[in-house]
């Protein structure tokens, strides 16, 4: 009798679990379907161009700028930085598969040893530290330049984020998803408020970018910043704009968020570095 009750209880628990068990494949499908349905005239791969995919007048300004894009200097600096050996003679290429060329689309990944998500920015600083170099600021120009170059070598390659068969990976994914949809800050906005519910709408002068493909264009040169910004910079400024205190760059929450957002954009091409208003 007791065991029957226990069995019943267990069944109840497991069915609750089933309802709550994350299903990344279904999520990604629903996510993409939402945007494709909302914007039937936008080609799926065009979502990586953010607001420019959604507004003709802005697209023309962007195409005009892309003739000689403002991130050119940063990209060039990143290329030089990437090629320059550390003081110990090693270089970034030694820290990455394929010498670091054409691999942007594989980041972030879940590291089984550490049990955590590793972003490209994090991997770059770890590479520096492993070679006796001080880490860069995650929101600074150096990190932006390096990631700009690495994105550039990966342009056109589709995001290929893997969630290994590991409950911790699934948990990281789920945490990222929760962060994405959780309202925060005095304005009570979630990431989704702007980038799921209202992409294409004007937030003052600007057209909000769709969340689908939003990281594919990173890092970005923003006219508002008058310079380049990393993913870390984008996420922390998003938080402060809604009057929330940003977490420290590369906090677990941000790493998981990047994992989630990149995963649901799987299949869309890397387009970074990008330029945005």
């Amino acid at each position: 009798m007791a065991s029957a009750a226990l069995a019943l209880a267990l069944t109840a628990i497991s069915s609750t679990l089933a309802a709550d068990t994350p299903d990344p494949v279904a999520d990604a499908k629903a996510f993409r379907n939402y945007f494709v349905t909302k914007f039937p005239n936008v080609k799926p791969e065009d979502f990586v161009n953010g607001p420019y995919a959604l507004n003709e007048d802005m697209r023309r300004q962007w195409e005009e700028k892309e003739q000689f894009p403002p991130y050119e200097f940063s990209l060039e600096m990143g290329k030089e930085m990437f090629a320059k050996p550390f003081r110990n003679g090693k270089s970034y290429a030694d820290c990455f598969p394929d010498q670091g060329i054409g691999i942007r689309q594989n980041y972030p990944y879940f590291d089984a040893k550490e049990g955590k998500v590793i972003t490209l920015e994090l991997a770059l600083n770890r590479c520096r530290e492993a070679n006796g170099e001080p880490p860069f600021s995650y929101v600074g120009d150096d990190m932006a330049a390096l990631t700009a170059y690495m994105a550039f070598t990966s342009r056109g390659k589709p995001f290929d984020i893997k969630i290994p068969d590991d409950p911790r990976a699934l948990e990281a994914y789920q945490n990222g998803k929760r962060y994405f949809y959780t309202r925060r800050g005095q304005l009570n906005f979630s990431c989704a408020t702007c980038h799921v519910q209202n992409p294409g709408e004007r937030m003052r002068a600007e057209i909000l970018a769709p969340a689908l493909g939003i990281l594919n264009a990173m890092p970005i040169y923003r006219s508002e910043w008058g310079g380049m910004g990393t993913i870390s910079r984008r996420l922390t400024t998003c938080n402060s704009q809604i009057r929330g205190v940003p977490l420290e760059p590369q906090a677990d929450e941000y790493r998981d968020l990047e994992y989630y957002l990149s995963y649901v954009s799987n299949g869309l091409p890397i387009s970074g570095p990008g330029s945005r208003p």
Partner: protein
Amino acid sequence: MASTIRVRAISSGETTEVQVLIQHPMDSGFVRDAKGEIIPPHFIQQLTFEYDGRNVFVADWGAAVSKDPYVKFSFKGGNKGDDLKISWVDNKGETDTTTAKIQ
């Protein structure tokens, strides 16, 4: 240090299309920094393009030209491999010059 001037000069046979992007703050003198201090004006005033011993284009700029300024124009003539000399001078008297090959 690398040149502040990036050039694309492409000959189509009859004309040469020139695009430049210059790394320069182009501070207008109307903007305040984080501490509320006015950032003093610092902008390129004149930019010249010299081909075959003569100016083919001269830009006079004020502070309203965007940061990292860009300009595009075309001139008749110009052959692949020819030199195009580009120089700028700003309001502080700083200058830079580069010579690019027409492609």
